[in-house]
């Protein structure tokens, strides 16, 4: 180890963290916002009132000390619904991303390894990708009954093909690497090749992809609610809050302001985290920094 390197490793930790923040502003900024929102969502019963209790006599009241973000057309507290809405939106985003990544990873790995599976699966994925995602989601939800799990499934389904493609291309490129060929030649069993070489290579692009999928899932949920094919209106989600209050854009903008701002903020945050991660994990870009 050279003297310079030793000096670097002996640097006090504080400036290390500051350095990290300076070099990854988007990642840090986005993460902070996300963490704050997640904490707020968890602490919902403590910081917000009842999101479901309807008192029509109190409808459309502007923000006041009683109702921080005013009330909606059924007299429900907008602040409470916005905070509880964070739960669903975060869960939808997380669930869609997890399901899409998990299934996509599995299928992609299979496709990367088996020629027969690949030809069948890739055609199926092409077919699935060819159907416009939002139409598939609307059809799925409209034809079943509306519930959070159906909406999650409906949004996750069209995302799977892209993940499969991503995983498959990673598998294919890693398989060609000399060290993998060497491992195969020396008789290493498949599970070990998978865990030692293949999987670690898929993780960075998958994580980045997962963040974009999560952000887009939250937006798609809003769009589905707008078109009447979203989560049941009883359960507040930012999407269905905006959708059912949209008539009041001019009359009572606070009904849209709360969820709208929250929605934009969290999607922004997730996208920023995705960007930050990609900048760090993509070897080409990281090299340049």
């Amino acid at each position: 180890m050279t003297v310079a390197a030793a000096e670097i490793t002996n640097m006090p930790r504080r400036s290390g963290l500051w350095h990290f923040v300076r070099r990854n502003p988007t990642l840090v900024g986005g993460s902070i916002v996300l963490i704050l929102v997640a904490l707020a969502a968890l602490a919902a019963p403590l910081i917000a009132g009842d999101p479901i209790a309807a008192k029509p006599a109190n409808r459309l009241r502007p923000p006041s000390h009683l109702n921080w973000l005013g009330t909606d057309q059924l007299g429900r507290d907008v602040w409470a619904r916005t905070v509880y809405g964070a739960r669903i939106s975060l869960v939808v985003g997380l669930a869609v991303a997890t399901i899409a990544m998990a299934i996509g990873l599995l299928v992609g790995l299979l496709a990367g390894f088996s020629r027969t599976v690949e030809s069948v699966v890739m055609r199926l994925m092409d077919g699935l990708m060819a159907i416009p995602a939002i139409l598939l989601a609307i059809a799925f939800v409209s034809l079943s009954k509306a519930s959070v799990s159906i909406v999650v499934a409906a949004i996750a389904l069209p995302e799977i093909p892209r993940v499969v493609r991503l995983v498959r291309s990673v598998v294919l490129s890693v398989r060609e690497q000399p060290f993998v060929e060497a491992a195969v030649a020396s008789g290493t069993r498949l599970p070990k090749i998978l865990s030692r070489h293949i999987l670690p290579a898929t993780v960075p692009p998958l994580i980045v992809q997962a963040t974009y999928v999560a952000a887009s899932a939250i937006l798609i949920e809003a769009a589905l609610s707008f078109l009447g094919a979203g989560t049941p209106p009883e359960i507040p989600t930012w999407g269905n809050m905006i959708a059912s209050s949209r008539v009041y854009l001019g009359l009572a903008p606070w009904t849209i302001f709360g969820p709208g701002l929250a929605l934009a903020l969290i999607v922004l945050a997730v996208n920023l985290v995705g960007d930050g991660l990609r900048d760090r994990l993509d070897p080409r870009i990281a090299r340049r920094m």
Partner: protein
Amino acid sequence: MTRRAATSRRKFLQTGLAAGAAAAAPGRLTAQSAPPAAKTIRAVMHGDLTVLDPIWTTANMSAYHGAMLYDTLFGIDANLDTKPQMVAKWGASDDKKTWTFELRDGLKFSDGSALTSEDVIASLRRWAARDGAGQHMMQRVSDIAKKDDKTFQFILKEPYGYLVDALGKTSTPLCYIMRKKEAETNPMEKITAYVGSGPFTFNENETRQGVRYVYDRNPNYVPRSEPASGLAGGKVAKVDRIIFENMADSQTALAALQAGEIDFYETPPIDLIGQLEGDSNLTLEVLNKTGNIGWLRMNFLHPPFNNVDARRAMLYLLDQEDFMKATFGNPKYYRKCASNFGCAVPMENDANTGWFKEAPNPAKAKEFLQKSGYKGEPILLMQATNIDFMRNAADLVAGALRSIGANVQVASSDWGGVVNRRAVKAPPDQGGWNLFITWADGNAVSNPIALAGHAATGEKAWFGWPSDAKNEELRDKWALAASLAEKQQIARELQENAWNFVPHVWLGQWVAPTARRKNLTGLLAVPGVVPFWNAQKA
């Protein structure tokens, strides 16, 4: 770049452009001249016109379409009195079992062919096959006979006082008169040609399904000489063209009205009426004074609402004020109503309305619910998410039931999903249901025969399948009653009985003001239909 690459690139571009041009050529030119804007009314109504056969469906939009194209034998005027329209004179025999009707002169179809009693009879039969009141009537009819081209007769098995009113009722489907050719279409199928007897013709060329529906003035129509009133009197078309624009989004429709891009908007959201009231170019007017009544249907086939105490609990539980305020905001446009036949109508009465004075009384509701033997099983409430009133009402019903400890499962879907599921008679956990919400036209509700929902014939009844023999007995009596006073008395008895067995629960009555540009005048106030004859733009 190599020459070979350059050549192939140019070729690529050339073939591409040629292909694109071929694909892009529209090949259609609408050379049809449209009437001037001053003679065209552009209207946004409450929904899309999906079925063009107004006999086959009960959808109100189809009834509006029917009113443009077809004429009726009788029509109600602004005072809800039945007046003759296509009929010149009519009378009954002394024993009241033979009714003779004579058509007025000059009646023609829009293709110029003469309208005779054969067309009328065929239309009547088809209508009766689809309509509840018509079916009720036909049970007492032994024949409808042609006497000559302008005269026909109803030959009854027993006197039926409701006959003429049934022919002129505005609850859907209305008794529209079509050509014999269309009227002979199987009642289970839809007609495919649209030649009518009314003041407008259907311009199929200009119509775009789901986008706009175009009606042109019928030059062959001969209106009556009296002034227009409701669906009675002379139907004089004072403009050349009416266009129904299908705008799904209420914000867009409202903004279009304010910008002058449309002339008439049937159902502006009541919360936004305020911003229209300030606009000097717009007028608000309630055309349908009996409005609509919110309707909670309960499933008589399965617990808990197969037990009368559970149904009574709902009467005491719900506060109509909440339901109305939530969706309609302004008390100017709604009221609570305890009468089984709606309010502001001749059949309104206050029999057996003690519960109304007490509601909401959650404690009493809870008592009744427990008395019914309810042990906490899930109550399946269907919610239509794409219709504001239904969506809000379901949230409120669920909240109210939960506040007395009931276990409510809300099944959300779009209205199509509700329509599908409400037809299922299986238990709720096997695809059925316990509760759903809709509404009914105020004028239709005021008629025990015309409204299918008033029948308590068990499994043959409307969704919910209420069952009560006394109800049916009294309904028959009502139909046979001759005078208004007699009808009102029987209505009292019906209601006395109804609020004992509780066939349904009302959620409040509201009227919806229409909004239009100030220069559009002459719109007729009548329930069930929005007529566009007599309307003109200054």
